[in-house]
């Protein structure tokens, strides 16, 4: 990373040398992608890339897209988590004893839509939309 930054600054002065550096860094990065296994499986990414019309036999590019997607999802999830943590929790009063024991971090539509709106995804959620009762809080209570 430091290498990259320094190469960035070098670029302004000696552009040709910096180009070579950048190329080397990029190749190295792509090679390192082969060692890294992203959580999003290659098969899934390949499938959707093929669906979108992108064709490339290079597995490293698939990995690159997978990593980029994983970063995107992780960013969104982190933002949603911040929303969840920042919100005071006066929501459930009858389950307060459970809440006091351990505040469950639940990915909710509310947080997700707020997080996604920053990423340019407008999500409208029906007010009356009833989610399945077996999700959300329930697995927590099942475990405990």
């Amino acid at each position, binding site marked *: 990373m430091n290498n*990259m930054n320094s190469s960035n600054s070098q670029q302004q002065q000696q552009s040709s040398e910096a180009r070579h550096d950048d190329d080397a860094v990029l190749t190295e990065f792509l090679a390192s992608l082969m060692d890294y296994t992203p959580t999003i499986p290659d098969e899934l990414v390949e499938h959707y890339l093929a669906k979108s019309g992108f064709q490339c036999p290079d597995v490293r590019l698939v990995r690159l897209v997978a990593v980029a*997607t994983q970063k995107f999802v992780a960013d969104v999830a982190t933002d949603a988590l911040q929303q969840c943590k920042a919100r005071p929790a006066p929501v459930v009063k009858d389950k307060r004893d459970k809440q006091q024991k351990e505040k*469950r971090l639940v990915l909710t539509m509310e947080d997700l839509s707020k997080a*996604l709106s920053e990423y340019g995804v407008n999500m409208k959620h029906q007010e009356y939309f009833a989610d399945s009762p077996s999700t*959300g*809080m329930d697995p927590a209570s099942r475990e405990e």
Partner: protein
Amino acid sequence: MSHGGGESGRLHDKAGHSGKRKSRVSGDEFARAIAKIAVAQLCETVGYQSFQQSALEKLSDVTTWYIRNMGKTAQFYANLAGRTEGNVFDVIQGMEELGLSQGFAGASDVDHCLASSGIVTEIVQYIGKAEDIPFVYSIPPFPVARERKPVQTFFHICEESPAEHIPAWLPAFPDPQTCVQLSAGNEGDAVFNADKIEPARHHLKMDMSSMNLPQHFTTCIGSEGPSSFTFGNSARATQGTESNPFLAAPLQFGEKEVSHLGPPVRLSEEEAVRYPVEQNHIMDNHMSVLETFAPAIEAMKSRFCDSEEGQKKVLLNQRPAVQFKIRVGKNSMAGAPDLSPQKIGIENISEWFGKDSENDDKKRRAEKILKQSIENPSELAQL
């Protein structure tokens, strides 16, 4: 952040849950399920302990949308550069475009080098930070591409094409025997098509033959009798039973070409007025029945000839038949069967009217009862 056995067991549970909702039909259920699991794993890594099902589905949808958009923009940039296959720079450019709303280091510099793009730097940072958590399951490559069996061409069979104008690379004709057997069922119009259409398209062939029929029909439409009205209705009703020729309704005489009948001018004029309706009926019918009922048609024809002494009689015949159609629509179905054999000659008309008076009696009685009930509303209330 833990990724213990219990957690993955829960994931299992959720995957099963999503599998239960298979009733919704969509193309890639499998891919979506996998995306859901992957996203759930990522959420777990971030620190979530649980999630709403709808939120997870939404996030996985957005994930797939992101992948697709990435592929689309990368392909776009590849095409822009005049290539069909994308390379790293196309992907990076695509990522930059998708990340524009967020912003990245060096985004303001239009001419920056793609190899040192801020997006790539961010990803390198992310990889250095993030744990290496592989997907829980090993999945086979999908979708499974089955090998297609190409249709045998003339060239493959090492057979000369039957005609000079058919090149050898075209798919070979099916075994002629299959076509001949099938076409034996409905000869006539369909037969000249039989050689050219493969047997799998049998139904199509039948349709084509029925499409040919109206023009063949116009030749004999002038000589058609009045009974065609009633027939049209019954034929439509029995369309479903056509597969069994013994269950189908008999054909009217007009469906076969009849040349020897010379109707009066007035009658033919009348028929011309009716013609559009007639043709509608014909279009409804499947004409493959035509051949199976050739004997019946012959019989009907001969009967018609017997009954036909003068042209005046034809006219007289016509009236009761029209009446008969109206009756069929109404309630006197029970009376119809025993009437049908008698409807030759003038004297039958009187019988028809007799029936009419009988029916009138019934009607009158019904009206009487109605009147009575109206007059005594108390009785009605009791009912």
